[in-house]
C-alpha cells in the first residue's frame, strides 16, 4: 500500500473515531440516569413558571436523535457542553489543562524510552548473565507495581511525577526492545560483521540500529497510550492539574460531558501517535527494501 493511501486511511479512521466518539458521548450523556431531572426543579424557592420552563427545556432533549444531532453540531463548532461539576465550559477546561499533561507525558515518555533503550542495549552488548538477571528483575518488579501505587510512592518521596510515568512506561518497553535487539544481533549478516572484527559502535550504528529501528518505532504509538493511561493516577494522586486529574474528578462526580470529551481527546492523541509511528515504520521498511 502506498504511503498516500495509508495516510488517507489513517485520517479517515481518525475522523470516524472522533465522529463515533462524539456520537457515543451524546448518547451516553442523554441515556445516563438522571438526565431528565434537573436538581433545580426540586428547589422550593423557584416559582412554578421557572420549574415549568426548566422541565420544557429538558423535554426538548427527550428525542435521542434530535439530541445527538444537536450535540454533534455543537461539538463541530468546538462547543462540548458545560462541566456539571465545575460549572465551566468543557472546552475551556481542556485547553487549560492539556499542555500540563502533554509536558508530563512527553517527559515521562522520553525518560521511559531512554531507560528502556539504555538497559536493552547494555544488556545485549554486555551479555553477562548477572546483568541480564538484574535488569529483568528490575523491569519485572516495576511491572508488578500498580501505576497508582507508583504515583503514591512518588508523592511520599516528593519525587517528580514525570519520573513516575517514565518508570511505568520503562518495563513495558524494555522487554520488547531487548527481544528486538537480541534477535537483530543474532542475524547472520551481523554475526558475520562481528566475526570480521568490526567495532562494537560500528556494528551498532551501521547494522543493528537500521534493522531494529522499524520494530522499535512500531511500539512508539503503544507507549503513548500506556503513558496517557498512567497520567490518570499520577496526576490524580500527585495533585497535578492535567487531563488525567480532570478525568478522574469527572469520574468521581459522574460529570459525563467532561469525562467523555477528555477520553475522546486522549484517544485522538493516541491515534495520531499510532498513525505517525505507523507511517515512519512503513517508510523505514520501504526504504530498506
Amino acid at each position, binding site marked *: 500500500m502506498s504511503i498516500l493511501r495509508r495516510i488517507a486511511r489513517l485520517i479517515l479512521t481518525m475522523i470516524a*473515531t472522533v465522529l463515533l466518539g462524539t456520537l457515543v458521548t451524546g448518547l451516553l450523556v442523554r441515556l445516563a440516569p438522571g438526565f431528565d431531572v434537573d436538581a433545580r426543579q426540586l428547589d422550593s424557592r423557584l416559582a412554578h413558571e421557572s420549574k415549568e420552563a426548566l422541565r420544557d427545556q429538558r423535554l426538548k432533549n427527550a428525542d435521542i436523535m434530535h439530541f445527538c444531532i444537536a450535540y454533534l453540531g455543537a461539538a463541530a463548532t468546538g462547543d462540548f457542553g458545560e462541566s456539571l461539576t465545575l460549572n465551566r465550559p468543557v472546552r475551556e477546561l481542556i485547553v487549560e489543562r492539556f499542555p500540563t499533561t502533554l509536558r508530563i507525558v512527553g517527559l515521562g515518555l522520553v525518560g521511559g524510552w531512554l531507560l528502556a533503550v539504555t538497559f536493552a542495549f547494555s544488556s545485549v552488548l554486555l551479555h553477562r548473565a548477572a546483568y541480564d538477571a538484574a535488569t529483568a528483575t528490575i523491569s519485572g518488579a516495576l511491572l508488578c507495581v500498580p501505576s497508582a501505587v507508583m504515583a503514591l510512592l512518588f508523592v511520599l518521596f516528593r519525587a517528580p511525577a514525570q519520573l513516575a510515568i517514565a518508570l511505568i512506561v520503562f518495563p513495558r518497553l524494555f522487554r520488547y526492545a531487548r527481544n528486538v535487539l537480541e534477535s537483530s544481533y543474532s542475524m547472520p549478516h551481523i554475526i558475520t560483521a562481528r566475526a570480521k572484527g568490526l567495532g562494537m559502535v560500528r556494528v551498532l550504528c551501521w547494522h543493528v540500529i537500521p534493522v531494529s529501528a522499524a520494530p522499535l518505532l512500531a511500539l512508539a504509538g503503544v507507549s503513548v497510550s500506556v503513558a496517557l493511561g498512567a497520567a490518570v493516577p499520577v496526576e490524580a494522586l500527585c495533585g497535578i492539574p492535567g487531563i488525567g486529574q480532570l478525568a478522574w474528578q469527572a469520574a468521581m462526580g*459522574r460529570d459525563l460531558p467532561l469525562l467523555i470529551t477528555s477520553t475522546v481527546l486522549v484517544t485522538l492523541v*493516541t491515534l495520531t501517535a499510532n498513525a505517525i509511528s505507523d507511517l515512519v515504520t512503513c517508510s523505514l521498511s520501504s526504504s530498506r527494501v
Partner: protein
Amino acid sequence: MKYLRIFAIALLSMVAITSLGAGFLTTVDYATQFREAPNAAPSNAHWLGTDQLGRDRFARILYGTRVSLLLAPAAALISTLFAALIGGVAGFVGGAWQRWATMLIDLVLSLPWLFLLITVRALLPLNVPPLISVIVTFLLLGMLGWAASARVMCAWAGAVRNSDFVLQARATGVRGCRLAIVHVLPNLKPLLAAQFWISIPVFILAEANLGILGLGVAEPLPSWGSLLRELEDLAIYSGELWKLVPLVLLILVVSSFELLLSRTEVSA
C-alpha cells in the same frame, strides 16, 4: 529458576488456600469496627493492627485477597470468551469479517485503558451496594480487556483456517459448526488457556488502580485496591511498615503469575 517457579506455585497456592479459609483463620468480620482502637499497632488481638475506622487489618487482607483472587480469574474468563467470540470467529470466517474485527480490535487497543475504564465505570452509579460494585468492577474489566487477546486469537484462527488439515476437512465435506467445533476449536484451546492466565495479573493490577482511585469495590467490602488506599496517608518514616502488607502481597502474587507465565512463553 526452577526453584523460583516452585516457590511461585507454593506461594500462590498458600495465598489462595489462606484466603479461602479466611473464616477459619480469623473470627473477626472484615466490617466489624473496634471503635476503641482505631489505627492500632499489631497486637495479639489484631495481628496486623487496625485501620482508621478500627477494622481488623488481618481479616480485611484475608477477605480482600479472596475477592481479588476469585474475581480476577472470573474477569479473565469473560475477556477470554469475548476474545474467542470476536477474534476467533472473525479469524475463522475470514474476509470482510476479519478486516472489520481487526479494525475494531485496533481501535479498542488504541484507547488508553485506564481512561476507558474510569469512563465506563463512571457511567454506572458509584453509590451501589458493595457486592454489586464488585460484580460491576470485574465485569467491566472482563468486558473491556479482550482486545489484545482477540488480536492473537484472530491471527491464530486465521492460520488454522488456512492449515492443511482444515482444507482436507473442507474437501471431505465438513462445514460450518462441525468444522469449527471438531477441527478449529481444539487447536485454539491452548491459546485460550494462555490468554486466560496472562489476563489474571493484568486484571489484579487494574482493580488495584481503580480501587486506589476510589472507583473500584465499594466499602466496607475489601479488595486489594481498596486496601491499598491506606497508602495514601502512610507515614512510611514513622515505621508503620505493617501497612505495607497488602502491597507486598499484591506484588508477590503478581510476580508469581509473571514468573509462571514467562515459563509458558518460553515453552511456547
